[in-house]
């Protein structure tokens, strides 16, 4: 079965091309079938390959053809399949399939139905290529392909130019990260002579010692790419705006798959990062800082999708933290569980938006508990998993991360404390969302609850979110084992109790209104803080002032070609000469005679110059 692995990305790709070419004359049902079916087939294929692989976990490599061969640079279109790839593929195809099913109903009335599924399928294909790539160049192909698909999907409703603006912002910011990653690729090839991940890591281990500068630079460049794609500080500003796209898109791209690409990249090239401990620390700090920053901002948001977007950023911050402290398996595990419950939350919010005729502001919703029971229960389970309440999948993965963060020698406890604060905030804002939207008096009337095509994915995801914690991801032989002794039990109890405290706080503030925050919120400091946090710590505002406006100014200034002025000058000089000389042609004969005499005098002086000197 292993040789069939290249079929997995091919099926969605083919269906996407099919949908693009004959989008006009296909009936809506057939389009749905084709779109969902292709991802479903890919899922089944992954499942069967996965079963074979779990039987005898032997990673295998398959080369289709050498992409290009120039002197010693010969990357191939080659796929590498091991435990990590299996996990990623199953997440992509599994969650992808559910989201495709969900969107058949969500996008029911949309005019360009086929175009939507074409883009979505192409996205899944690109993501699959990304995770299955054997060499970094093919990974980069998947990387950019995913970027373009996210641009197309975020800007799907292109009639409104604001969506176009958001899509362009998403693409350009990620493109900055991609450029850094490309430079990383160039450095790696120049130093190590190959881009095939496995052989590259082997060569790196021989060639470099721990703590060299070159691996540090390479890792930081790769981190730049990861930060761009996974929306971490400093390149995170595009994700909240990317909510302009349809909600299933946000679910698939900005929750489950694309944003985790950065985590996958670092996990896949972990040997390099192990060679540069400083870069590991940087990853951890970036992760922690992002998770805290995003958590605070999520607290203040009023748009349901922006809350979830900031919560995604904060959760990925956790994964970066895990990778930073060397807990690779825990990071990937959290990636998987996060995909389940975040997709669940997004789809739930999609259902709410769909049936509340596109209402985004949570304070205008309320009391949906009775009217939309399926959505309510999916939100409850999703938020529980998000906040990592005990026995949910989120609990298992987040605790592992916090434990291993604690165990890290040196800054471990501090990272653990930061993580705890993040967990507390996560609990508060997730349940704030639940209480405000589902409890309290109803403000707007939803017209009905989810149809079966929405309900089934929600229920499946609820199941996964609950039991996800018990999955054992087969990455034991991919990553080095985690050292360090198990910390004292009190650390575990603290990390269990923190989410519960958060739940209690959220209940008190938002549901039963015992603790009155108004005095604090309306105070001058509170207002300032509120606006500061609401605007994403002012980073977006900063970028706008520092980068975007000057770029517009610069290009506007140079619009009509300053260089042309130089050539204009040359022309002007010639024109003036022409003008003077033309004036000299007065037509007066006496003037001509004068010029002849003048000429004679000049010739005489020139001719007599030397004899005069000789005298």
């Amino acid at each position, binding site marked *: 079965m292993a040789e069939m692995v290249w079929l997995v990305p091919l099926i969605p790709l083919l269906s996407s091309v099919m949908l693009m070419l004959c989008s006009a004359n296909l009936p809506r049902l057939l389009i749905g079938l084709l779109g969902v079916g292709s991802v479903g087939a890919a899922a089944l294929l992954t499942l069967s390959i996965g079963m074979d692989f779990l039987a005898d976990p032997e990673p295998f490599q398959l080369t289709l053809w050498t992409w290009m061969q120039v002197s010693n640079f010969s990357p191939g279109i080659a796929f590498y399949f091991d435990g990590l790839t299996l996990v990623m593929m199953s997440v992509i195809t599994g969650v992808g399939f559910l989201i495709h099913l969900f969107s058949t109903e969500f996008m029911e009335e949309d005019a360009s139905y086929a175009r939507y599924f074409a883009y979505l399928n192409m996205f899944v294909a690109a993501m699959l290529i990304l995770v299955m790539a054997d060499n970094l160049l093919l990974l980069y192909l998947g990387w950019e392909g995913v970027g373009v698909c996210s641009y197309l999907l975020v800007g799907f409703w292109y009639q409104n130019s604001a969506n176009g603006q958001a899509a362009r912002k998403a693409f350009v910011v990620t493109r900055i990260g991609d450029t850094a990653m490309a430079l990383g690729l160039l450095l790696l090839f120049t130093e190590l002579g190959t881009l095939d991940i496995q052989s590259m890591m082997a060569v790196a281990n021989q060639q470099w010692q721990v703590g060299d500068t070159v691996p540090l630079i390479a890792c930081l460049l790769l981190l730049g790419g990861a930060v761009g794609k996974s929306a971490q500080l400093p390149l995170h500003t595009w994700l909240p705006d990317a909510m302009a796209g349809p909600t299933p898109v946000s679910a698939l791209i900005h929750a489950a798959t694309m944003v985790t690409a950065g985590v996958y990249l670092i996990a896949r090239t972990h040997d390099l990062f192990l060679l540069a401990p400083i870069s590991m620390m940087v990853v951890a700090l970036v992760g922690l800082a992002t998770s805290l920053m995003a958590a605070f901002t999520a607290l203040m948001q009023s748009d349901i999708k922006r809350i979830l977007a900031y919560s995604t950023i904060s959760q990925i911050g956790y994964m970066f933290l895990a990778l930073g402290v060397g807990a690779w398996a825990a990071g990937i595990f959290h990636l998987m569980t996060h995909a389940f419950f975040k997709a669940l939350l997004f789809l739930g919010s999609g259902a709410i938006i769909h049936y509340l005729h596109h209402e985004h502001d949570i304070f205008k919703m309320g009391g949906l508990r009775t009217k939309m029971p399926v959505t309510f229960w999916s939100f409850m389970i999703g938020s529980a998993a998000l906040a990592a309440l005990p026995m949910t999948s989120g609990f298992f993965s987040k605790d592992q991360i916090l434990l291993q963060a604690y165990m890290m020698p040196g800054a471990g406890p501090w990272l653990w404390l930061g993580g705890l604060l993040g967990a507390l905030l996560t609990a508060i804002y997730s349940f704030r969302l639940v209480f405000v939207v589902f409890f309290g008096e109803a403000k707007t009337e939803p017209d009905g609850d989810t149809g079966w095509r929405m309900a089934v994915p929600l229920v499946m995801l609820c199941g996964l979110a609950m039991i996800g914690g018990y999955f054992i991801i087969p990455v034991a032989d991919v990553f080095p084992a985690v050292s360090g002794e198990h910390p004292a039990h009190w650390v575990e109890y603290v990390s269990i109790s923190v989410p519960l405290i958060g739940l209690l706080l959220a209940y008190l503030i938002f549901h039963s209104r015992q603790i009155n925050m108004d005095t604090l919120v309306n105070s001058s400091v509170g207002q300032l803080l509120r606006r500061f946090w609401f605007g994403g710590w002012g980073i977006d505002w900063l970028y706008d002032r520092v980068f975007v406006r000057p770029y517009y100014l610069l290009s506007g200034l140079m619009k009509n070609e300053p260089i042309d002025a130089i050539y204009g000058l040359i022309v002007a000089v010639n024109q003036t000469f022409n003008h003077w000389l033309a004036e000299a*042609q007065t*037509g007066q004969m*006496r003037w001509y005679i004068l010029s002849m005499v003048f000429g004679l005098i000049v010739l005489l002086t020139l001719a007599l110059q030397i004899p005069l000197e000789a005298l």
Partner: protein
Amino acid sequence: MEGLNIPLNHILLVSSLLFSIGMLGLMIRRNIIFILMSLEVMLNAAALAFVAAGAHWGQPDGQIIFMLILSIAAAEVAVGLGLVLQVQRRFKTLDMDSANRMRG
């Protein structure tokens, strides 16, 4: 002919003076007749220089060229005066500054 042996340079000086006077006349005068006259002066200055040079080198060439210059000057003046008649009839004036229709 040892009688009047004036050094060559003096005569050359005189003829170049004559030449410059002719040129000056050419520049200053506006009336076409006087322009032709100053042309004659310049040509004769050259002729004088030739004769002096011929004398200096004791060769007849100078005077032969002098004869040549006379005939050429005559030809030019003949054609010149013919044109002057046309100018008088056409432009109603002999002032050469009026003939500046072509410029630029």
